């Protein structure tokens, strides 16, 4: 398993770890059975992501992709954050081993899940804007990373 220096840097010194007590968008994706859970907290004011924090249970790549995803959306508008792709996270980390690409997908989903929660709290149906977020149990079946 060969990780880039950037992945190791974000793993050993992850940015934005923790919780936001007064977050107005919180999302959690993944499944402990699969070995990855990401929880993301957003503090959004006037359509801008003022603060973002995460907590992750998972491998080195799961922690690094969470950290990088928070860096990529911090200070951005909600619209910009909605455009975050897993590929952007992979590129910003100078690549990931093939077996770990699913971690970047999870990081993208964690952001979308937190944004969905933000819309829901405003009384807005998030699905037309954010799209469908896979439920954790469906994640497990569709990720194809393991045998169960």
């Amino acid at each position, binding site marked *: *398993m060969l990780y880039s220096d950037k992945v190791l840097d974000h*793993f050993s010194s*992850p940015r934005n770890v923790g919780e936001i007590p007064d977050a107005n968008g919180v999302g959690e994706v993944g499944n*402990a*059975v699969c070995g990855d*859970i990401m929880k993301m907290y957003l503090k959004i004011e006037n359509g801008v992501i003022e603060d973002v924090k995460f907590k*992750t*249970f998972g*491998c080195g790549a799961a922690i690094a992709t969470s950290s990088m995803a928070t860096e990529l959306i911090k200070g951005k508008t909600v619209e910009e954050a909605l455009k975050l792709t897993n590929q952007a996270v992979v590129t910003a980390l100078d690549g990931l081993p093939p*077996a770990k690409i699913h971690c970047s997908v999870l990081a993208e989903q964690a952001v979308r899940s937190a944004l969905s929660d933000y819309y829901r709290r405003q009384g807005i149906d998030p699905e037309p804007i954010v799209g469908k977020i896979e439920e954790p149990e469906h994640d497990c079946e569709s990720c194809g990373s393991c045998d169960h």
Partner: protein
Amino acid sequence: MEKRFVYADNSATTAISKPVLDAMMPYLTECYGNPSSVYSKGREAKAALEDARAKVAAALGAKPNEIYFTSCGSEADNWAIKGAAMAGAKKGKKHIITTNFEHHAALHSFQAMEKQGFEVTYLPVDSEGLISPEQVKEAIRPDTALVSIMYVNNEIGTILPIPEIGKICREAKVLFHTDAVQAIGNVAVNVVEQNIDMLSLAGHKIHAPKGVGVLYIRNGVGIETFMDGGAQERSKRAGTENLASIVGLGKAIEIASADIDAKNEKKRAIRDKIIDTVLERVPRCRLNGSREKRLAGSLNMSFEGIEGESLLLMLDMKGICASSGSACTSGSLDPSHVLLAIGLPHEIAHGSLRLSFSDDNTMEDADYIIESLIPIIERLRAMSPVWEKIMAEENN
């Protein structure tokens, strides 16, 4: 605490020892002859080959002509299992028995035979990581061609009752193979006293190089040939011998088989200090596998709320080489089949750590591991949403 380098993954592989390298050097340089050649350079190579064979035989309580050199432990397992199954099939015996927590070299060989129409009984291990001889006795049928059970589990280090299982198989006249890759040098093995018909071992687990293994086949046991070709290894395993490595293996097994008890005492002290301290200081952790029936130099623990690879990466940053389950499974994202077999839920199996020691490790290594490991677990738990949930449930 000053940073150290601690190699604590000796169940994965070991460093080549100085005496082993010294023994090998002539066969990597001036003694390059082919053991099958008739001239003096070939004869000296042949003599070295037979000397190594005698050393392996002595360590196992076997005869030299029962020792076959292979390319690795996996080859020995493949040969024993597939060769015995195929030989059994010729006599109408198409049932084979193993356990559900073997090394993949054995497990996947059994699965391959299953695809070829053999019926396989996978004996379930208990929560302690053990198999009882009675389980084997009950599973044996008139059409059983082979029982293959590992001597020591590579991930959790439990020692199985091989002499008792050997006795049952001998009485039932069923062939018995054991994968002893993790046992050699740690447990006193004697193929005659323990009724073992076939046994696999690998050089690199006992300070010899990678790329050399052994299959012991008791005289009188007929199994199919695995590698066709020249007349090497009594025409049962073709291919020009990996002489330098074989010489290294001979030296290594001679050293590994001496003073096992004294060496185990030292490794046991390191192991127990880590187990006892970590169990006492870290909440929600467990030792995997029997506390008593385990390798002196191996431990496997699970820590709730964290994932194994993160733990290994952080230990690596502290200079500690360890493993999460088996290194052979690191390409997969599945938790270890061994930890699942002893009944661990997936989410706990993900957070496991194996530490395995050799004679080179010290009590200072144990202290350094403890003082590095505990803050790492705390740090990973502080950023884990799973740990957050566990704590919330505990406080309710």
